């Protein structure tokens, strides 16, 4: 009985729809078409990478087999439809819908420009997010703790935070001496007010019993702020970090389409203007990968830094 059950899982993990799709998508990658194709090797490497991750996860049993089959079937089916749609069915003209091999080929050609753009963008995002969040946390901590300050400042911050930071972009790009300073300022404007608002309500939401405990442990005001309120707000703060970085990314990419000379958003914008859509597609994929990577890093940081709540899988 047990041996048969084992065999059927083993068989399923090799002969399944996902692997069938993988073979098909590989075959499609080497198909010719009536327009100029780039060498498919970069694309094939990506496909093999997905297949390798798929098999690795089956062996590791990190998820139920059927979920893995579903997920990777969708991925391969997506590539297959894209490839056939472009090369065989000509859904759109091939300049508008380039086949995946032409798009992934760009990464082998433009990687130095891309890496440079990545660092340019990340640098601006980091400066903007770190300064905006640090100042927002400090302001929110003080404003949230002192009722008089809170009553006075909260309405003002509410108004400022409700203005989308992007509306400052056309103005700041002109006023600021360099594009870098302008975009850091815009990101800061998109991060600081919501962080402050968030922090004010976090501090207000801290259980009064915790503050009583802190006071009965003879903490003074400074001690309460730093040793009780700040750690008590750490979890919602880390939770908001992901949203903040996503916001910063959106702001920067938009800002880069206005006045930059390098960066991830600039790359997309520039080649869209030249109607070089393989490069546009490549740029979009790169941005997606970077955002997913950053989210992964934040998640890793959360699990390493916060050990005092129940880990949830």
């Amino acid at each position, binding site marked *: 009985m047990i041996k048969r059950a084992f065999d059927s899982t083993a068989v399923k993990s090799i002969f399944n729809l996902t692997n069938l799709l993988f073979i098909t998508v590989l075959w499609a990658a080497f198909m010719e078409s009536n327009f100029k194709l780039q060498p498919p090797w970069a694309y094939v490497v990506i496909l093999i990478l997905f297949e390798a991750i798929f098999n690795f996860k089956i062996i590791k049993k990190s998820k139920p087999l059927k979920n893995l089959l579903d997920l990777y079937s969708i991925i391969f089916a997506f590539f297959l439809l894209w490839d056939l749609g472009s090369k065989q069915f000509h859904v759109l003209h091939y300049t508008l819908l380039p086949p995946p091999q032409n798009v992934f080929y760009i990464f082998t050609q433009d990687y130095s420009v891309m890496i440079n753009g990545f660092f340019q963008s990340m640098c601006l995002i980091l400066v903007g997010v770190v300064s905006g969040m640090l100042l927002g946390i400090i302001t929110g901590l003080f404003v949230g703790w002192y009722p008089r300050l809170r009553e006075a400042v909260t309405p003002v911050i509410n108004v400022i935070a409700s203005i989308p930071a992007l509306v400052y972009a056309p103005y700041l790009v002109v006023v600021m001496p360099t594009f870098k300073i302008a975009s850091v300022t815009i990101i800061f404007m998109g991060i600081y007010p919501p962080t402050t608002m968030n922090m004010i309500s976090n501090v207000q939401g801290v259980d009064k*019993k*915790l503050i009583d*405990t802190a006071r*009965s*442990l*003879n903490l003074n005001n400074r001690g309460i702020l730093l040793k009780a309120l700040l750690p008590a707000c750490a979890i919602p703060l880390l939770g908001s970090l992901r949203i903040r970085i996503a916001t910063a990314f959106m702001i920067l990419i938009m800002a880069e389409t206005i006045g930059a000379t390098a960066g991830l958003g600039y790359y997309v914008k520039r080649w869209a203007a030249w109607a070089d859509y393989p490069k546009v597609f490549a740029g979009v994929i790169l941005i997606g990968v970077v955002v997913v990577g950053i989210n992964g890093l934040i998640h890793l940081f959360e699990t390493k830094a916060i*050990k*005092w709540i129940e880990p949830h899988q």
Partner: protein
Amino acid sequence: MSKIQLENVSFSYQQSGDFSYALEDVNFEINEGEFVCFIGPSGCGKSTLITLMEGLNFPSKGKVVIDGNPVSGPGTDRCVVFQHYSLFSWLTAKKNIVFGIKQAQAGISTKKAEEIAHEYLEKVGLADFGGKYPYQLSGGMQQRVAIARALASDADIMLMDEPFGAIDTRNRMLLQDLILRLCENEKKKRTVVFITHDVEEAIYLADRIFYMEPKKIKLDITVDFGSNRERAKVFGSERFLSIRNNLVSMFYDGIDSEAVAL
């Protein structure tokens, strides 16, 4: 000499407008080393009394005097255990205690504080749980850590606001025995103010019981079971039954008239 003294204390949470007192003209004295229980229906002002003694609130009228000085805020001579686990969730059990010790004894070295913390974790039977975070401990264990933190701070006065109120019966018994044992075997005899709404708990633990009715103290009962109490002996004694019946009938008086009103 009396350790804690309340003179004509009235207290209201609102300071202006149309307000009523949570406590009105309360007077009592607690002697050094006494274990005093405050008991009474909810809303009678028991917890308010603790906040006044701790210095988290100040009387609207009258004064709270500890060791001859009026209370001007929380101090290292007093420590508190609240009903709801008042541990810092971001510190391990041991670090919570170390934090308390460092706050109480400025300038103490971390190493020394850790030694003391470990000693008190042993006393409450949690020597192996020092590295655990509060979420990894049961409610009873968390409360034991809170008690250890309070004891380790070496304060003369322990203020306990329904510390076992949210704990199941079995653990509650264990904790009652623990607190009796710890308070008796310490080098110095601590003064304990303990709030509860459990009549039997009060009799078992206290040297003196204050029965409270809304806003004031109605009765001051001396419980003379002495030290090294044994649960079975205390609970089986005539004296226990008479105090218990007395207190229960006090509680019941209120219920009776409310039932009639309904």
